[in-house]
């Protein structure tokens, strides 16, 4: 189906269907005359893909001026922002002196100087008002004795450019993300935002460098829908599910970045994937850094507080990449709790010194996780932890207004935006600081929403010369067809991918391992061509959904591995045994990776270092 031709018959049809349309939907009609195909076509001003913190904040802003629809593969309130625990960083200075400039500097240093510094300054400055906005909209932050928003310590956040840890993380017990998601969803309820829950995006309508909307599958029916709009914003979150041990939800499969990558959009700094040092052993469930912020200590099998040897000033509150490396180093030296030097060994997070009252009041969720999944009480028992794949620093390249970059030379797509974890501004550089993910969502989700709403005022509708809907229909139909027997099982490919990524593109990396990983991932992508959907029904075909998600993960895994293989230095979360040092002379630059069928084309883009000169990173 060609949407341009479709648009020629639109005006007459529009008039007819406007009479019947439901509130919140401009119109819907079925198109079957020319092509014998039926797609449900909807028209909006703006589309927001993903209903976590970034998507909801953007929708609230865009919705003020533009007819906006929000899409989510799960019900909006199930989004993974809700799993964020410890806090949102902002230099309010409520409990001790603090300044946005210090926050920005910590962000830059924490990101091993791969952060775009002016963007980090925006992040830190606008975080302050964003936190007040959330509070004013009802977010129940914990309070100081004076009734102000309380703040606590978090990894890598310091006073006066690294002097000592500072209390910067505003928090609502250890369910800060849950409360942000709830508050923003409440506001969307108040402002009557239109949601399409349980819609899976499968493609974008690209006409050259202009995005005219999306193609999505309605999970409840299996129907393919086309949504056209003047602007589309991706806020689909992370893709930790490409790793075996992850804190991420099943839904975190990088659908936005993958769909765009297949349409030629470059992805930035994909080699930088954060491993959080304290996931529950074997399960990956996150144990918040706030446990260490409240006084928790990492210990090896002899009970030693080993961080004293790795980060003498910040100790257990050093940035996550450093703490994860320290944990793996201890394990490799036989200092893990089992002491067998195997990659799945673990260390202890000792929260017994925190005390029952603080654990109950400020860390109730993690206490509950320990009881439910480990059968232990952190008041009395040490928590077995190991690094867990947690956060993608890289993603869809954007400027500070969420506009998606076409290249490293200041060119942008029209009508295409991204925000949140799926985007790369870049404010996290090579390693994100704790709490800055939530800051990123609210600051850049809001900015993208504002810019998008302004863009729409002057933009023409471009329905594009896209065959995406027809292609999506054919692709999905193809997934059901008989293929070479025996057809590989999706679960086996997923398992192999997750193991490769965990073992070869993990906390420590080296050239030969990554070489092997890239080859193996290519083979898996070939095998994927023969995967067949085993569930032949249309309603809630979760098998189809998982097969579509697997394609996205495989594409992003390959891009990640190729980007990592080519970066011959160690920086932040990208730590190479064969190139152990940071190399600013050659590698102080962002990676831009373009997927071209089976290969990945890499180019590089300058880093904004206008505020602070890169220095060695010590804590």
């Amino acid at each position: 189906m060609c949407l341009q031709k479709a648009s020629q018959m639109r005006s007459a049809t529009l008039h007819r269907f406007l009479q019947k349309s439901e509130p919140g939907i401009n119109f819907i009609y079925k198109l079957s005359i020319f092509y014998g195909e039926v797609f449900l076509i909807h028209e909006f001003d703006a589309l927001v893909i993903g209903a976590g913190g970034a998507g909801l904040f953007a929708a609230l802003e865009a919705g003020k001026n533009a007819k906006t629809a929000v899409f989510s593969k799960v019900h909006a309130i199930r989004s993974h922002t809700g799993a964020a625990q410890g806090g949102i960083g902002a230099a309010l200075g409520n409990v001790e002196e603090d300044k946005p400039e210090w926050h920005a500097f910590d962000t830059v240093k924490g990101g091993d100087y791969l952060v775009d510094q002016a963007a980090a300054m925006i992040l830190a400055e606008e975080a302050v008002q964003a936190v007040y906005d959330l509070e004013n909209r009802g977010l129940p932050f914990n309070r100081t004795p004076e009734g102000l928003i309380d703040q606590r310590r978090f990894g890598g956040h310091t006073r006066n450019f690294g002097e000592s840890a500072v209390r910067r993380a505003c928090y609502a017990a250890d369910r800060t993300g849950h409360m942000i998601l709830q508050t923003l969803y409440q506001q969307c309820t108040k402002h009557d935002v239109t949601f399409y829950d349980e819609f899976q995006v499968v493609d974008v309508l690209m006409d050259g460098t202009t995005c005219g909307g999306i193609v999505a599958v309605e999970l409840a029916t299996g129907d393919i829908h086309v949504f056209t709009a003047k602007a589309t914003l991706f806020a689909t979150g992370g893709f930790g599910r490409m790793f075996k041990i992850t804190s991420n939800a099943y839904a975190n499969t990088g659908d936005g970045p993958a769909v765009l990558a297949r349409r030629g959009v470059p992805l930035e700094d994909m080699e930088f994937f954060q491993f959080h040092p304290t996931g529950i052993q074997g399960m990956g469930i996150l144990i918040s850094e706030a446990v260490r912020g409240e006084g928790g200590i990492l210990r090896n099998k002899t009970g030693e507080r080993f961080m004293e040897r790795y980060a003498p000033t910040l100790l257990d509150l050093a940035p996550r990449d450093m703490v994860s490396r320290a944990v793996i180093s201890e394990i490799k030296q036989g200092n893990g709790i089992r002491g067998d030097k195997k990659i799945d060994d673990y260390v202890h997070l000792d929260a017994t010194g925190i005390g029952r009252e603080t654990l109950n009041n400020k860390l109730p969720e993690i206490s509950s996780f320990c009881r439910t999944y480990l059968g232990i009480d952190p008041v009395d028992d040490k928590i077995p932890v190991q690094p867990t794949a947690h956060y993608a620093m890289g993603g869809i390249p954007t400027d500070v207004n969420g506009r998606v970059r076409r290249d490293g030379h200041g060119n942008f797509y029209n009508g295409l935006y991204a925000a949140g974890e799926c985007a790369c501004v870049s404010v996290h550089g090579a390693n994100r600081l704790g709490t800055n993910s939530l800051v990123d969502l609210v600051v850049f989700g809001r900015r993208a929403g504002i810019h998008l709403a302004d863009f729409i005022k002057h933009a023409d509708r471009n329905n594009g010369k896209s065959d995406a809907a027809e292609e999506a229909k054919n692709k999905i139909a193809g997934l059901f067809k008989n293929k070479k027997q025996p057809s590989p099982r999706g679960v086996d490919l997923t398992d192999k991918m997750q193991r490769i990524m965990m073992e070869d593109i993990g906390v420590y990396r080296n050239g030969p391992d990554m070489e092997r990983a890239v080859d193996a991932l290519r083979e898996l992508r070939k095998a994927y061509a023969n995967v067949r959907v085993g569930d032949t029904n249309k309603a809630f075909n979760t098998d189809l959904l998982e097969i579509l998600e697997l394609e996205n993960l495989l594409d992003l895994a390959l891009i990640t591995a190729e980007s990592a293989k080519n970066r011959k230095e160690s920086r932040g979360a990208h730590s190479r045994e064969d190139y152990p040092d940071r190399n600013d002379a050659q590698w102080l630059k962002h990676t831009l990776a373009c997927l071209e069928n089976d290969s990945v084309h890499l180019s590089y883009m300058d880093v904004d270092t206008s505020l602070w000169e890169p220095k060695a990173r010590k804590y």
Partner: protein
Amino acid sequence: MRIILKIKRYNPESGRKPYEQVYETSANPTDRLLNVLMDIKQKTDLSLSFRKSCAHGVCGSDAMRINGKERLACKTLVQDVAETDGAIITIEPLRHFPVLRDLIVQQSSFFDKYRSVKPFLINEEPPQEKERIQSSEQRSMFDDPTSCILCQACFSACPVFDENVRFIGPAIIAQAFRFNEDSRDRGFDARRKALDTPDGIWACENHFECTRNCPRGIKVTKWINQTKKRISEHKENN
């Protein structure tokens, strides 16, 4: 250990009535039941359908009835519901909602009721300071229901729905309570309209099943009764 899962299934496209399917499998006592379901789905029966996402009890996707009680599959370990080798675990979709497929139920009626109580902070006064001042004591008054994840388990557990599907429901009243008791909120009157009706708070009969079965341990019945009390007092005083 060996376990037997009896799963209630329904496929609208088959023309067949809901039926029970038995799966025998092995699992570790400490496995999450969600993982057991995933394993069956991916290796035995790709058509088995259920919702899932965070897998650690914070997103609310996988509420279902396990051995006749409402639970989150990801927050239930095999050993919590199967004591001996060969134990039978029954799994059914939530009650009181139309079943769309297998363990997937319709969510729209729940969220329609949610919207009816204006579940957002209502306060048109500008903040005195940058943030609205609130003491820890004031905050603690409504802390408990803020952890609600809208998983709908309480709707399935509540016997009132057996007779009255129009009941506004436990989680919804708890949401209204959360805002009514927030010292920053001015929306009590706006919410009262939806609550003070025969199908609102007064339909609750204090069965305590919502509290007993809440995966988040929220004292739902207590907040319903406090809401009843506050509305009664309000009516007496006006």
